[in-house]
């Protein structure tokens, strides 16, 4: 469906996208994942013909987006990061304009508009001025515009940014509905969103594609280590002594929390997760030191993301500004 070959985009000396290549097949939901400024929007803008690439090629359904823009653009519907809406129009007028521009005949136009308004649930605001609509409704009108004329590919750039949690869930449901008979590509820096919605994830960092797989496969591939976190009512030396006696714990880091408590983060081989928990529990109970917390974290998409995008250091603490933890990203650390 879409083929991107050796795409490069430079702004003066700054390279926003460098030598990006990937192919996108039919009828799935793809997620573009990357920190802010990774080149997601730039890539999407080039794929939809809004920007010209410095070098490289994009073909949509066999048509080159630069050479045969008219034909290629008929296959795509695009919602840019900021919905491109005429604020002094009503959604109906706006969709009528977009429909005509997409070449829908006057006879089919009202039916098509009704259809997309039903799908995006915007029918009840159809005759209010867009400037009076809430952000959520504006986003929906933007999506309605993208799916008008039933393009095979729908590209959505950060479709849930700035929405409240309820709206986010609604938009996600909408995207899943769209995924049933369109190829949907969405970009996001919110991991839970990509994990919940997408069948394939493309992780982009600093303008390069660093991974492309299903969320499950990525988790399996990158489950580099098992991590167990504990908090105990014990001194640093006691905890250190007990942990060094457990063979499956390869590495640990102790922080003193005050009030005679210590927290520690333990790492071991991925298959040893439960074994570490068991040994820690027994060791502390034998020493009659109360464990206040014991939980096992498995590598989540978030860790993979940070590892792939954070200069290979894989440490969340090193990259606080690159990855704002938003909306439920914390919940992804699975607890046992």
């Amino acid at each position, binding site marked *: 469906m879409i083929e991107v070959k050796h795409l490069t985009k430079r702004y003066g000396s700054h390279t926003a996208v460098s030598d990006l290549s990937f192919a996108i097949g039919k009828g799935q939901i793809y997620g573009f994942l990357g920190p802010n400024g990774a080149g997601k929007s730039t890539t999407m803008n080039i794929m939809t013909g809004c*920007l*010209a690439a410095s070098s490289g090629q994009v073909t949509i359904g066999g048509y080159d987006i630069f050479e045969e823009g008219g*034909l290629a653009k008929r296959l795509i519907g*695009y919602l*840019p990061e900021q919905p*491109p809406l*005429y604020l*002094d129009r009503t959604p109906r007028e706006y969709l009528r304009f977009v429909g*005509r521009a997409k070449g829908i005949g006057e006879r089919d136009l009202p039916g098509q508009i009704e259809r997309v308004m039903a799908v995006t649930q915007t029918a009840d605001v159809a005759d209010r001025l867009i400037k009076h609509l809430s952000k959520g409704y504006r986003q929906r009108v933007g999506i309605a515009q993208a799916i008008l004329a039933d393009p095979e590919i729908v590209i959505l750039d950060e479709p849930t940014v700035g929405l409240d949690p309820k709206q986010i869930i609604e938009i996600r449901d909408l995207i899943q509905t769209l995924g049933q008979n369109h190829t949907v590509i969405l970009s996001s820096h919110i991991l839970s969103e990509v994990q919940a919605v997408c069948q394939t994830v493309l992780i982009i960092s600093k303008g390069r594609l660093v991974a492309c797989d299903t969320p499950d496969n990525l988790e399996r591939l990158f489950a580099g280590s098992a991590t167990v976190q504990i908090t105990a009512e014990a001194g640093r030396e006691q905890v250190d002594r007990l942990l060094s006696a457990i063979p499956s714990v390869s590495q640990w880091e102790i922080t003193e929390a005050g009030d005679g408590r210590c927290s520690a983060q333990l790492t071991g081989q991925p298959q040893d997760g439960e074994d570490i928990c068991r040994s820690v529990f027994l060791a502390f109970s034998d020493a009659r030191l109360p464990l206040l917390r014991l939980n096992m974290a498995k590598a989540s998409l978030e860790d993979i993301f940070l590892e792939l995008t954070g200069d290979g250091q894989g440490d969340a603490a090193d990259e606080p500004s690159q990855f704002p933890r938003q909306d439920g990203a914390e919940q992804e650390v699975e607890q046992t």
Partner: protein
Amino acid sequence: MNAIFRHEISSCFTNLTGYVFGAFLLLFAGIFTMVYHLNYQVANFEYVISEMSFVFLIIVPILTMRVLAEERRQRTDQLLYSLPLSMAQVVLGKYAALLCMLLLPTAVICLYPLLLSAFGDIYFPAAFGAITGFFFLGAALTAIGVFISSITESQAVAAGLCFVVMLVNYFLSSLSSFVASSAFASFAAFAVVILLLVLILWRMTRNSTVALAAGVVLEGGLSALYLTEAFEFSGLFPEVLEHLSLFQRFYTFVNGIFDWTAIVYYLTIIGFFLFLSVQSLEKRRWSE
């Protein structure tokens, strides 16, 4: 193109610019008709039209400031780029809509001589010739306005710049009489103009080799011409300025001459600036 055209027409009427534009034109047409025909009892409608040309200084910026600048500010230009439309279709659609905005009040003005003929002898060919010239003058100025709107994303900047350009154009023939008419003065003036053009070229392309080459070729050609035919240069610059003035061409229509070359000149200006607008939109994709 049809979609853009209909969209633009309706937006001219939703955000008042259409009404303001029409009202301004008709208001001044009314005032001058009253002054010339009712007060001074003159039977030449061309005088009314001639007086009205300065109204364009104010209303053309109002009409054109929004047209492309607002798309850019609202980020709706991304929609236009992603729709299956070529930039030529976008510019032509918008320009056609603006022409309609100009055509409507002009059509109303066409009724005035008919109405006045009931009370005296109006020479229709001169009157309608002047109105035709007036319309083409407006169309050419509008094309310039569209281009100016395409290079900025602020309506205010577009309007200000457009006003300045119209103003300079309006006074171009008077200004040209202040320019020294000696051969060397003309040569120097042309040299400065070429330098400015080369600077603009360099600024737009950021390619110093091309700009430098163009500069050397043009300045060299100019110097060669000056050295061989220095006599021809005397008074040339003011003359060229006067010929470039859009308003000056319009006054021949007022004087009762239907000047086809002027029409061709206006059409050329329209084509040139619409082409530049398309290029300006295309360029934005490369440098954004």
